[in-house]
């Protein structure tokens, strides 16, 4: 394939856009399935509330790196799966996922040029806000006993973001991007 394909238009990204291994459908869907499998795994009860929502993190990553594969529709479907998996009130997670994806897609051009760590700082509000939004919406829809401990999962996922972003960057060749000088 030609280098021009699979990259953003030249004037938006002045440097280092040639990817060694650009994101493909298989990579995007494969990593999302793997993340879903992590979510569905039998975690020990005592740490269950600390386990981040891996599918959500991977979704946001692909929102930044490959928005043409992972957009709002994907967020909606993943949200519904998360609702059923967690036994939550249906529609809460899909709304939260869609909002986060919308924010990330609006900031996508800005976010994609940061390295994994600074990206993590900017994505952190979405990661923390998703759980908070689900809890608040749940309260609004009449679930009045809320275990606020579950907000901790957002903190853990914000801490894990650099690692995850780095891993997926390696997968898509972003990590080997030449440093701009």
């Amino acid at each position, binding site marked *: 394939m030609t280098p021009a*394909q699979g990259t953003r238009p030249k004037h938006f990204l002045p440097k280092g856009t040639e990817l060694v291994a650009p994101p493909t459908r298989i990579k995007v869907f494969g990593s999302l399935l793997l993340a879903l499998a992590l979510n569905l795994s*039998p975690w020990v009860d005592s740490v269950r509330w600390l386990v981040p929502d891996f599918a959500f993190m991977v979704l946001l990553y692909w929102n930044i790196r490959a928005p043409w594969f992972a957009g709002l529709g994907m967020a909606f479907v993943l949200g519904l799966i998360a609702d*059923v998996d967690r036994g939550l009130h*249906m*529609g809460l997670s899909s*709304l939260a996922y*869609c*909002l986060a994806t919308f924010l990330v897609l609006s900031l996508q051009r800005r976010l994609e040029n940061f390295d994994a760590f600074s990206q993590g700082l900017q994505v952190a509000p979405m990661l923390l806000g998703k759980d908070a939004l689900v809890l608040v919406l749940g309260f609004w829809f009449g*679930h009045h*006993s809320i275990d606020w401990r579950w907000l901790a999962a957002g903190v853990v996922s914000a801490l894990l973001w650099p690692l995850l972003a780095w891993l997926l960057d390696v997968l898509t060749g972003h990590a080997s991007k030449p440093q701009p000088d």
Partner: protein
Amino acid sequence: MSQPPKNPLFSREMGLSARFGLYVLASLVIAGVEARYDVLHSVRVGVNGLLGPVRVTLARPWEWLREAGDFFVIHGALQAENRRLRQEREHLLAYQLDRQALQAENRHLRASLELPRPPGVTPIHAEIMQTAPDPFMHRVIINRGSTQGLAAGWPVIDGAGLVGQVTRVFAFTAEVTLLTDKDQGAPVMNMRNGLRLIVSGTGTQNLLEVRFLGMHADIKAGDWLYTSGIDGVYPMGIPVAKVMNTSQAHGAPFIQAQCRPLGGVGRYRQLTVLRPAPASPVEKP
């Protein structure tokens, strides 16, 4: 890559905000329907039917690991356990004899008083697969579902006492809402004096409470609370909780009693679901 990326600035589809609005609307409609009606339950059952096998497959490696770990238990530990179990069995046999005598007497007394027989229950054994990762409720998923004939509303116990109630049934799994859930309650009876109460969850792991007791209610620390069986959901005589202390909130005209659940709520893996006796109208004496 099979297709070149679309340029979002000049694409001919709806703008990002418009699509976002549509998806938000869809989510809110789904949430609203879920809050009011029961139609989404079948969707939930369907999706859960797909997720269930995946969950089982993912849990398999861990089960293998645990079984492998169990295999290397020391011989001495097994012997000690065997000895302990033998003693326990003797103990239970003696207890059983006593119980049989009491049951015979109870039958006789009931017959002489012409009281209807208490409805019988059939136990269905189940195992906890996982705790539902739900910030709003205390729930576990068990490995029995509608295929095994489960239905929502049935009580769930373990060897020590009441654990909770089946609230949602899927094809091969079911959700059990634990007694410690804030919205879960059970009608109980104080064993000491027959006082009927309602014990409810507090939302914390190991605490139940009796809310809104009259000021002069006869309940004190050390009392045992058993199901009273008057609600028709829980059969009579399942141990539920032991009263730890009673307190009066400042300025409130009620007293509250804090209780410790007797059933291993959130402790054991093996549970028993009680299938109520097939509905037979109680004959009026």
